[in-house]
């Protein structure tokens, strides 16, 4: 085990997979000579050269589509979006080409590609640079959507995503690149896609949280335990599509109360989906209505105080847990 940052964990995953498989290459804006806008690809250009680590022009639709075409012809591209906000320009190729190629070709053309980069809020970068887009991509059959919250998950899940034969949307969190955690040193360490992780066991209330919300939910759980004697179970789905619903349902059946935390907007969000699934599969087990804690339903503001108000925090999650536990 080594204690490293999420940034370093992602870097290791890419490095190891580049070394392991000649068909893997990484392309994106500033991934090579600049060492990555967020330094996730630091050192890779010098180690693997310009054939495998490729700086692209600012042409998101173009290089996303190039990646899908390369995957059709047998390569395994990693396409980095400097941030997922810019993937919006590439959605035609992600949605209309990558997600549907296998199906509309009657199973002939698999698309083993990873679209990765940071998503969600950063620090005061305002509306166009602070978007959590996982519910968009999770909507489409044919895509897999992964969102790690720890260094070990980041490494293990990214390696699995690169080895997977389907298009994977791999959303990192801009604020979390510097978060540290223990990561196994084994170069064959992977974490299977589609498996949730119970980040904290508990018996009174289930909190389902992903990405940035996981450390915040864990802090809320600690405080609730210490101050209120409420025991919270924190579940991180890690993969949004396919979603490990059995783990969530099992937990809800045990605790009978659930809070869903997410950074994204509430309307048509992932938590709306989880909420509906809980109602379908565990309605009779609920002792309180499902409670969602989401990002504010507004474009992200710039001002620091307004930005803080827009993102769920420990206090909001504690208030939601108290509500479903009928405390106060």
């Amino acid at each position, binding site marked *: 085990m080594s204690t490293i940052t999420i940034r370093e964990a992602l870097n290791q995953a890419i490095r190891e997979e580049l070394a392991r498989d000649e068909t893997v*290459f990484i392309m994106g804006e500033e991934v090579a000579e600049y060492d990555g806008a967020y330094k996730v690809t630091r050192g890779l250009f010098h180690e693997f050269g310009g*054939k495998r680590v490729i700086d*692209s*022009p600012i*042409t998101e*639709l*173009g*290089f*996303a*589509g*190039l*990646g*899908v*075409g*390369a*995957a*059709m*012809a*047998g*390569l395994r*591209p990693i396409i980095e979006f400097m941030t997922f906000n810019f993937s919006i320009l590439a959605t*035609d*190729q992600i949605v*209309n*080409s990558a997600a549907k*190629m*296998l*199906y*509309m*070709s*009657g*199973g*002939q*053309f*698999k*698309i*083993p590609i990873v679209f990765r980069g940071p998503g969600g809020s950063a620090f005061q970068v305002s509306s166009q640079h602070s978007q959590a887009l996982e519910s968009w991509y999770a909507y489409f*059959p*044919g895509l*897999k959507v992964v969102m790690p919250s720890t260094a070990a998950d980041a490494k293990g899940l990214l390696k699995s995503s690169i080895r*997977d*034969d*389907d298009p994977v949307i791999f959303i990192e969190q801009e604020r979390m690149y510097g978060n540290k955690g223990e990561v196994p040193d084994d170069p064959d360490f992977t974490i*299977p*896609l*589609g*498996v*949730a992780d119970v980040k904290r066991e508990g018996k009174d209330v289930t909190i389902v949280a992903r990405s940035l919300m996981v450390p915040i939910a864990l802090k809320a759980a600690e405080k609730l335990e210490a101050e209120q004697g409420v025991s919270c179970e924190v579940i991180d789905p890690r*993969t949004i599509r*396919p*979603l*490990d*619903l*059995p*783990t969530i349902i099992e937990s809800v059946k045990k605790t009978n109360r659930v809070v869903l935390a997410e950074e994204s907007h509430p309307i048509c969000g992932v938590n709306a989906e989880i909420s509906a699934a809980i109602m379908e599969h565990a309605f009779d087990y609920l002792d309180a209505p499902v409670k969602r804690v989401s990002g504010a339903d507004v474009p992200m503001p710039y001002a620091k105080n307004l930005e803080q108000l827009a993102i769920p925090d420990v206090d909001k999650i504690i208030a939601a847990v108290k509500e479903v536990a009928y405390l106060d």
Partner: protein
Amino acid sequence: MTKPSAAPPSAAGAEEQSSTGVIDPPKDVDKKKLAKERDQAKERQKDRLSALEPAQLIDLYRQMTLIRRFEEKAAEVYVAGKIGGFCHLYIGQEAVAVGSISALRPDDYVLGSYREHGQALAKGMSARAIMAELYGKVTGCSKGKGGSMHMFDKELNFLGGHAIVGGQIPLATGIAFASKYKGTDQVTICYFGEAAVNQGAFHESLNMAQLWKLPCIYICENNQYGMGTSVDRAMSLRDIAQKSCAYEIASEFVDGMDVLAIREATLRAVERARKDYLPTLLEIRTYRFMGHSMSDPGNYRTRAEIEKYQERDPIKLFVASLLEEKITDQETLDKIDREVREEVEDSVKFAEESPLPPPEDLYTDVYANPIDPAKNRTA
């Protein structure tokens, strides 16, 4: 600073310019010059014909005729309600697919738009596989899941039918990227209509292709209409081949009604791609004799315009050359036409008798590595 001048440089220049700035042909046609040009064209055509064996030439005729007859039949069964969805026919454009694909090796890649039945046939797909796909049958080339706009054949390196205008252009660029990455000398042809040239995907792709020297041949089939919008109403610079200047990419303008001219231009592009990993843009000026799709009202162009282009029907022109140079006779061509009609009839019979996809196919081919979280978790 120079002042922009509204006045044309000379009186003569003023006469030649129409109000839209397009230069009209001179009023006094130099008949001698035209006759000379016609003779030169005939000589060129003779050279082109002699560059191929008679059997090869006759095969080009056979392929174009197969596409024509296939599409006529597709229209017929569409009207009869046997096939659904959209159906974009290739009639009038046959020379483009046949001429260009004849310049390829079997292991080269081809991608097209949603008007791709003809390209699929030219790449070697069977009429049966394509017709069955139109019928939505499990024996179709995409197991009935793709339909008219999504024909695929991995064995033949026919990489689809793509139905978002211009969407196949970045894909083709990526396929060419993969050929270079793997160090093979395979070439990719990407077909698209002139309307796709207005999409960002075209410009982004050409930039990357020349920047990274990718072996892709971009073939713009300029049939002069994007659905019902003529190129005059949609494009500020209508000389598409000239747009290659923006990316320093090699380009040629080609007569889309001349199958041998298309073959020759493609051969030059193939050589550039295969030897030097260089892309090419070919603007091939053609015309579709049918509507955009089967539901086209046709009210945006005149019957006279269509008839004018039908005089230069690519199959008719090619037949005239073959007969004039005595490469074959009418009897042989008629026999081929009958064989092709039989092949198409057989494809309809095959499609009609084929089974529909079984209901369980609805949920297959969504993922190459399907994941069942419940199973994964306990594993």
